[in-house]
C-alpha cells in the first residue's frame, strides 16, 4: 500500500488516496527563522470531521495556508484530495470550500455582491446558476435577510456566516474551516456544529480548526493536536481517548503519604505527584487491583483509590503542560 517511489503514503496508515488531506513532513520556516510548522504528517481520512486543535500560534493556520497553496512549504509535501499542492490547486481547490483565518470581504459591497465576486472568480462555476447558488448558501447560514446589506454593516457573527456561505457556494468534497465559531454566540456556535454535522452526513470531509476544544470536540470523528508547530497527537477521537494514559490516585491520611508513594514507586508507577492528602501516578500497565493489594499489604491507610482516563482536554494539558488559549 505504500508506494516507495513517491513515498506519498506514510507507512502504518491509510494510503493517500483514501485521505482527503495528507501531509508529509510539512514544514514552514519563515524568513525570520521562526519555525511555524515543524514537519507534521497530517492524515485526514475522507468522510472524517477532523478537529484541528491547538492554542493560538501553534501553527494551525500556517498549516491550513500551506494546504490551500497560499504559503509555500519550506520542506515536505501536502496533498489535498489526492493532488499535491500547490501545483494541483487548479484541479482540486474548486472542490474545496475554505474559511481561512476569519472572513474577509469587500466592506463596501453587499453580502450577495461579495459572493457574486467570488463566484465570478471561479473559472469552473456556471454563471447561470450563480445567483441561485449564492441565495441558497446565504439561506443555509441564515443570512438570507441581510444579503442586500453592505458587508461593513454586518456584525462579527454575520461576517463569519458570510464566510461560511462563501465556502458553501458550490457542493464541496472538502471543507477547511479555520476557527469557524470565532465571534459567534453560543447559539451560532451550535448552528455551526449542526451545519458541520449535516455536511459530514452528506459525505463531505471537514477539517475544522479551533483553539477551543470543547466547542468542536463533540462533532469530531478525528482529532489532531498542534502545539508549537508540532502535531503532538492525531487519530480517531474515540481511540485517542481510550489510549489516554490512566492516572491512579490514592487518598490516604497525611502520615501515610510517604509510604504510599514508596509502594507506587516500588510497583514501577511513574510521574508521582504527592499532595497533603494523597499521591497520584501514571498507572502504566500495572493492574489497579495489584496496587490496592500492595497498599493494603504495606499497611497504608487506604481512604480512596481512583483510576481516571483523561478526556481530550486533559490529554492535551498533559502533552503540552499548558492549557488552551495560550499563545506561544
Amino acid at each position, binding site marked *: 500500500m505504500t508506494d516507495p517511489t*513517491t*513515498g*506519498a503514503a*506514510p*507507512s*502504518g*496508515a491509510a494510503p493517500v488516496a483514501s485521505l482527503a488531506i495528507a501531509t*508529509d*513532513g510539512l514544514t514552514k520556516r519563515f524568513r525570520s527563522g521562526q519555525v511555524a510548522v515543524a514537519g507534521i*504528517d497530517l*492524515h485526514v481520512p475522507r468522510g472524517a470531521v477532523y478537529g484541528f486543535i491547538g492554542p493560538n500560534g501553534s501553527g494551525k493556520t500556517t498549516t491550513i495556508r500551506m494546504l490551500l497553496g497560499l504559503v*509555500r512549504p519550506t*520542506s*515536505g*509535501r501536502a496533498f489535498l484530495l489526492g493532488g499535491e499542492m*500547490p*501545483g494541483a490547486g487548479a484541479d482540486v481547490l474548486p472542490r474545496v470550500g475554505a474559511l481561512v483565518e476569519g472572513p474577509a470581504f469587500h466592506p463596501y459591497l453587499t453580502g450577495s455582491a461579495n459572493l457574486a465576486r467570488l463566484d465570478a472568480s471561479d473559472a469552473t462555476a456556471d454563471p447561470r446558476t450563480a445567483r441561485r447558488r449564492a441565495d441558497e448558501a446565504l439561506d443555509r447560514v441564515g443570512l438570507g435577510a441581510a444579503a442586500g446589506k453592505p458587508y461593513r454593516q454586518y456584525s462579527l457573527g454575520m461576517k463569519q456566516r458570510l464566510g461560511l456561505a462563501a465556502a458553501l457556494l458550490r457542493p464541496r468534497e472538502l471543507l477547511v474551516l479555520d476557527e469557524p465559531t470565532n465571534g459567534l454566540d453560543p447559539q451560532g456556535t451550535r448552528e455551526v456544529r449542526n451545519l458541520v454535522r449535516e455536511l459530514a452526513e452528506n459525505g463531505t470531509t471537514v477539517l475544522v480548526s479551533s483553539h477551543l476544544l470543547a466547542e468542536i470536540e463533540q462533532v469530531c470523528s478525528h482529532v489532531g493536536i498542534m502545539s508549537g508547530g508540532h*502535531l*503532538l*497527537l*492525531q*487519530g480517531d477521537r474515540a481511540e*485517542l481517548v481510550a*489510549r489516554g494514559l490512566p492516572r491512579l490516585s490514592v487518598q490516604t491520611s497525611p502520615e501515610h503519604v510517604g509510604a504510599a508513594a514508596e509502594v507506587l514507586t516500588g510497583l514501577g508507577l511513574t510521574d508521582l505527584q504527592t499532595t497533603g492528602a494523597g499521591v497520584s501516578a501514571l498507572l502504566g500497565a500495572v493492574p489497579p487491583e495489584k496496587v490496592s493489594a500492595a497498599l493494603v499489604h504495606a499497611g497504608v491507610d487506604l481512604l480512596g483509590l481512583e483510576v481516571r482516563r483523561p478526556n481530550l482536554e486533559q490529554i492535551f494539558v498533559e*502533552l503540552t503542560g499548558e492549557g488552551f488559549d495560550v499563545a506561544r
Partner: protein
Amino acid sequence: MTHSGAMTESRRPAASPTRRALSSPRTRWAVPVVAAVAVGLAFAAPPLFASADDAGLPTISPEELAAQVASAEPSPLSGTVVYTARLGLPELPFGDVGGANPVALLGGSSTMRVWSDGGDRSRVALLGATSEFSVVQDGPEAWTYSSTDDAVVHYSLDAADAARYDELTAQAEAGDLPVQGDLPTPEEAGRQAVGMARLSSTVTLDAQTEVAGRPAYQLVVTPTSDTTLVGRIVVAVDAETSTPLRVQVWAASDTKTPALEIGFTDVSFATPADSVLAFSAPAGASTREVVVPLPDVPEDAAATASDGSAKDLPEGVTVTGTGWDAVVEASGLDVAALVAGDPSAAASLPGVDKTFGSQGAADLYSEFVPEEGSGSPMGDLDTTALYDTLTTEVPEGRLLSSALLSVLVTDDGRVLVGAVPGATLQALAAR
C-alpha cells in the same frame, strides 16, 4: 510525553527534482532578469550594429571627397538634427523654462527639424519639450515663429531689393542666399568645414561610419598650426549624395569628446511637402515686420565666400595672422549697443560667423537679440547679465574663452575674435 508512534510515523520522500525546479521561486525570478536583459539588448543593439565601422564603401582619396562635397548640388532633404555644444562656457543662468530658445545653442544639446528643397525654401524648427522656434525661408521672405509667445517676425526685402533678388536667383540658381534665416545645419556647417580645408590644413580620411543610418565617409581636417584652439574637424559625408551628415569640431584641449557636434540623427532626401516650406502668420499671433536690406553681392561671391583671407573687409576691420590663427579685429564698435541688442552692432562682426564654425549660429544670435531688445519674448533674460556671465574681467577689458573660440572686448572699443587662446588676443590687443 510522546507522539502516538504508529499514526504519525512516516518517511520523508525524495521530491521529484524536475517538478520542483520548474516551479521553484528561483526559476521564476529568472523571468524578470531575462526581461531586463532582453530590454537592454533591444535598446542597446541598434548602436552596436551601427558601429560596424567598415561600411564597405569604395575607397576614395581625401581630395576627391572634398571636391565632391564642394561641388555637390544642395539636395532637397528633411530630417532631425541634434546639435551639441560643449564649449566650456559657464553655465547659462536659465534652463528650459522659456521653451524653445535659440540661446540654448550656446551650450548643451538641442534638437532641430530641418526641411529644405535644396534651393531657397527651407524650414528649421528648434524643438523645446512643448514648444518650437521655427525659421522659415521662402525665397526672398523669411519668418520666425516662436510658439512660446505666439509671435511672428516677418523678414522681407523692399520692392527694389526684391526685384534684384529675383534677378540674382535667376543668375545663380542657388547659392549664398542674401537672407539668412537659417538655424545651423550639418549640411551648411560641413560645406564650410571643407572650405576651411584650404586654410593651411592637412586633409585625411578616417574610418567609414554610419550617420542617421546611412553609410558615410569621414573627412578629417587638421590645422597645421599648433597655436589654434581647433584640434580637428571631422566631417561625415554621405556616401551617396556627398552631403555632409555630421560635423564634429574637436578642440585641441579635449580629445575625448568634440566641442561642437552637429549631425543628422535621421535624414531623408525627398523633397518636403509644400505646406512645410510655406508660412503664413497664424490668426491671433503678434507679427512684427522687418525689412532687410539686400547686401551687395560681389560677382564672384561663390568663389570667395569660403576663402576667409581674400574677402573685402568692411571699414574698421583688420585681420591679423592667416588661416586658423587669424584674428579679426574690429575697432570703433559700440559694445554697449551690442550687448543691449542692437542688430547693426552684431552684424558688424564679420569674423564671428566664419570662426564660429556655423554661419547660422551667429546669425541666429543677431536674429534673437533684436527680439530681446523689444522686450517681449524670452521675458526675464537679461543680455547684460548673460554677457557678464560669459566673459571674465582681464586687464584689457572682458574676455570670453571657450573651447574653440576666444573673444576679447577691450575697454577702448575694440573686439578681437579668433580661434586662438585668450592670451594671444590679449597680446595682440596690447600691441
